[in-house]
Structure formats: structure tokens, C-alpha cells
């Protein structure tokens, strides 16, 4: 038994650290639960920091370092543990009780930070950090100063809380007058990767070029390729309470070509969050991450036009800004799972429930319509009878 297996005691901590730096999160976790000595080695924050930075390159950005270190999250191992699994919507999941100490009645937009990474063909092509929600905080912080709103933060908050929830990471504005694509807002845009959004004047005047060669490129359907190669991670960090959650589904939920701009694709990622009935009827909200990009033949990776987050309830109606923040708060304390298959099944269940609900709604409306029509016909018949009998 002496020489039967690898003898741990002979391996120094440096060598063990050298071994563990090449493993993933779940292996480190298994090692940490094996014995005291491995626990000490596997709990080393530098290992977890390296793992986080390899999994989410956005955590290596300067803004992220500042945001993570200033939050009470308690270490990169906790950050990994919260952010690695995806939100699970399982049948019979009950929302966390509202009186739970972690859930607050009000979430401030400045307490949230988003770390987003987009991967194409297994390589990270875009990493961004967004501190807070610029649209909900002071409007003068937004880069678009040409409108000169002069709103104070109260008005801004009132405006934001009543409008449909939207959290914009990246968006390019299509200037209808000149036909040029201009960069409108770009959250924290230092140290970009080369594969970021369209450059100004990229498209020339008007719509995309209509020369013969480009036509063929634009007609080719990249939907399957995007479905298989594009992955997105959106980690939301609660800076005040030191919790984080991955709001994305990792794989796309939907990829479709938008019309009439050929070559432009709309991709959805997201998660289903369970909430209380008092917040939203039907107790479910879908957090959708919208990605709009342009694909052309010969380009290494997609050109990003928009990356933003919206929310809707089971009926497909938009969720308001203030309710959206509450949904995010619930998401931070949601049930999670690293089993992607279960997560996908959760989505299918949600879609099924949604379809059933829409069917019921349609049936009810048809019933009411036919009832109204019957009454109208009866009234008409009775009226005609009395009219013609006199």
C-alpha cells in the first residue's frame, strides 16, 4: 500500500499548486473537500483568481478588479461558486420567501455591476464591465450629451422605473439622416478587443453594400454557426451584499436573421427567474440578453451592434424598470445548477407554460367574442321582429 498511489506527503505545496493551477473549478472543489492539507492548497485565492480570469476574462480588467475587491464577496472562490452555475427553472420551484434576510425591498442600481464575456469559437472575443445601470443613475453620466437633458437623479429614477427595463452594455445608433453608423454609447470602453462594434463610416452611405460579391455573402445563413459557436456569460454582481449570479443561458436560446438588413442577426440568451405573485402575476420573469451582430464571409468574428438586457413576464409584456431591479434581486438568490441539460429543460418548460397560457387566453377571448356576437345577433333579430311586425 506504501507505493500504491501518489503520496501526497512527498509533494510540496508548490508542486501541488502547480498541479491545481491546471485543473478546473470542480476539481479544486473536490480537492478542497478531500483532506485538510489539500483544502489549504486548493483554497489559495490566487488559484481561484486565475481560474476566474480564465473563465471570465472580464474579471481581469482593471474596472472589474476594483469592483470585485470593493465588494464583500469574500474571495474569488466564492465569486466562482456563485457565477459558474446557471439559473435553474425547475417545475415546482418556489420563489424565495420575501422575508428572507438577503432579499431587500429596494435595490439601488449603483449597487449592481455587470461583467460580460462573449465567446466565439471557444475564444473570448469581447469582455466588458458595466458599473451600475447608467440609464437609471444620473443621466448626465451617459455619454450621449447631444440631447442635454439636464435631468436630476430623482426625475431620472422616476423615468427609469416606469419605462420598460433595459440595461444597455453596447449599442450603435443608426443615424437615419446621413446613413452612417455612429457610435452612441459604449460602456467602459477602454482596452477593447479588436472584434468590437462597427467602426464609424464602416458601411459607407445608406444600407449595406449591394455589390454582387457581398450579396452572396449576405445571403449565406450563419444562424446554425452562431447557434453552435457563440456563447455569452453575463455575471451580475451585487456589490453591497457580495453575491453574484450568471444571468445568461450560456448557449443561445434563439438566433434569427433580421430583415431587411441582411447579414444582421438577432440572438437571445437569458434565464427564467421565479418571483412572488405580488411582484409579477404568474410568478415568472424571463431575463433576455439581446445581441445584435453582423456576420460577413471572411471576417474572423461577428461585428457587434447591440448587447443589452430586457425583461418580460410570462405573457410577453415588458417589465418596468423598478420591477426589473427587484427581479434581478431575486435572481441573485435563485436556485442554480451546473447541469446545462437541466437548465435547457427549464427553458422548454417555461416555453410550454407560456404557450398553454396564450392558448387559454386566446380561447377565452374567442369565447367572449362569440358571446358578444350572439348577443348582437339576438338583439338585431328581436329588433327586426318588432320593427317589421308593426
Amino acid at each position: 500500500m506504501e507505493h500504491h498511489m501518489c503520496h501526497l506527503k512527498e509533494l510540496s505545496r508548490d508542486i501541488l499548486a502547480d498541479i491545481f493551477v491546471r485543473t478546473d473549478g470542480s476539481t479544486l472543489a473536490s480537492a478542497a473537500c478531500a483532506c485538510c492539507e489539500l483544502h489549504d492548497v486548493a483554497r489559495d485565492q490566487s488559484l481561484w483568481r486565475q481560474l476566474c480570469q480564465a473563465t471570465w476574462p472580464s474579471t481581469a480588467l482593471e474596472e472589474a478588479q476594483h469592483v470585485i475587491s470593493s465588494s464583500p464577496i469574500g474571495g474569488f472562490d466564492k465569486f466562482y461558486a456563485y457565477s459558474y452555475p446557471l439559473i435553474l427553472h425547475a417545475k415546482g420551484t418556489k420563489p424565495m420567501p420575501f422575508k428572507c434576510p438577503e432579499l431587500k425591498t429596494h435595490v439601488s442600481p449603483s449597487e449592481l455591476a455587470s461583467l460580460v464575456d462573449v465567446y466565439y469559437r471557444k475564444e473570448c472575443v469581447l469582455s466588458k464591465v458595466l458599473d451600475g445601470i447608467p440609464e437609471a443613475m444620473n443621466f448626465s453620466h451617459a455619454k450621449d450629451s447631444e440631447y442635454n437633458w439636464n435631468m436630476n437623479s430623482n426625475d431620472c429614477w422616476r423615468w427609469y422605473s416606469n419605462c420598460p427595463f433595459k440595461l444597455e452594455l453596447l449599442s450603435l445608433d443608426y443615424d437615419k439622416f446621413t446613413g452612417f453608423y455612429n457610435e452612441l454609447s459604449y460602456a467602459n470602453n477602454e482596452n477593447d478587443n479588436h472584434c468590437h462594434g462597427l467602426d464609424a463610416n464602416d458601411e459607407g452611405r445608406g444600407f449595406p453594400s449591394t455589390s454582387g460579391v457581398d450579396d452572396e455573402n449576405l445571403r449565406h445563413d450563419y444562424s446554425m454557426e452562431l447557434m453552435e459557436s457563440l456563447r455569452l456569460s453575463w455575471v451580475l454582481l451585487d456589490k453591497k451584499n457580495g453575491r453574484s449570479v450568471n444571468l445568461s443561458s450560456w448557449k443561445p436560446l434563439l438566433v434569427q436573421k433580421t430583415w431587411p438588413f441582411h447579414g444582421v442577426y438577432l440572438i437571445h440568451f437569458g434565464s427564467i427567474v421565479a418571483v412572488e405573485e405580488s411582484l409579477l402575476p404568474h410568478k415568472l420573469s424571463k431575463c433576455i440578453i439581446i445581441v445584435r451582430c453582423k456576420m460577413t464571409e471572411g471576417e474572423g468574428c461577428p461585428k457587434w451592434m447591440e448587447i443589452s438586457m430586457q425583461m418580460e413576464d410570462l405573457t410577453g409584456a415588458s417589465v418596468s424598470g423598478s420591477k426589473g431591479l427587484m427581479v434581478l434581486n431575486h435572481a441573485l438568490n435563485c436556485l442554480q445548477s451546473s447541469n446545462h441539460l437541466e437548465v435547457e429543460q427549464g427553458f422548454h418548460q417555461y416555453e410550454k407554460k407560456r404557450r398553454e397560457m396564450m392558448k387559454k387566453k386566446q380561447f377565452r377571448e374567442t369565447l367572449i367574442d362569440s358571446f358578444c356576437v350572439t348577443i348582437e345577433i339576438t338583439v338585431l333579430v328581436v329588433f327586426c321582429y318588432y320593427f317589421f311586425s308593426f
Partner: protein
Amino acid sequence: MKFCAVKQYFDDENNNNITSGASTTMIPLPNVESHPLAILITYCKKHLKIKANNADNKKETEKEMEQYEQELLKKVMPQELTELILAANYLNFKEALDFFCRAVASAIQNKSIEFVRKFFGLESDFELGEEEKLREEFAWSFEGVDED
């Protein structure tokens, strides 16, 4: 010279002005057994040979090296890995140390706690309740773990 510890020995010898006839000098390696040393020497020779054959083509070198490493792993028993790692560490042979660490890392990748304990020859020495707490804390990582 890949075995940096041996190189250091030669450098020290030169500094002390002792005759350093490479063919006749005896270098003491008290912490390395003959069997792992033999494997390391073979690995080193193969590594240099492949590098010389594919001087310009780095990708080809890497590919051939990978193939050789896969074959080597099939012949090496898991229990020998510790000895090899310790030998490579003592000799300061970076490439071999890198390779064997990778081999151990992939051997324990995505395996259960019990497998890791068995692999390293360990027993749980946690206090009462401590292990349960840890298992609960890391519950997210145990889904999808390989069967032992």
C-alpha cells in the same frame, strides 16, 4: 542542458576550477531513483530529437511531442507519477515537470472527492461536521462529476 540542476553542478565545478570532463565526472543525485531518472533521460532525448527534426515548424514539434507524451502516459503507472514529479522538480527539468503535473491534473479532472483521496492516498482528517459544511458549500461542483 535541460536538467538545470546538473547544469548548475557543472557551472559550479567550473567555478571551482576542478576538471569537468563530462564523460568521467560523477554527479551525485541523492533524491532521484534510477527508474524515474531513466524515464526522464528518455523523455529529454526524445524532446531534443523532435525539436531538432522540426526546427522551423513549431506546430509539428508540438504535435509530435503530444503524441509521444500520450504514449508515454500509457506506459507509466499513476503511482510512478509522484516519483517522476519529484525527480523532475529536483533536477529542475521544467518541461518534464510541466508535463507530469498536467498528467496528474487531467487524471483528477472532474472526479469525485473519494477518487481524489484514493489517488493521493489520503484519509479525511476533517473535524466532525466540517466535511459536511464543505460539501454543502461546494455542492454546485458535484453535478456531472465522473463515476469513479
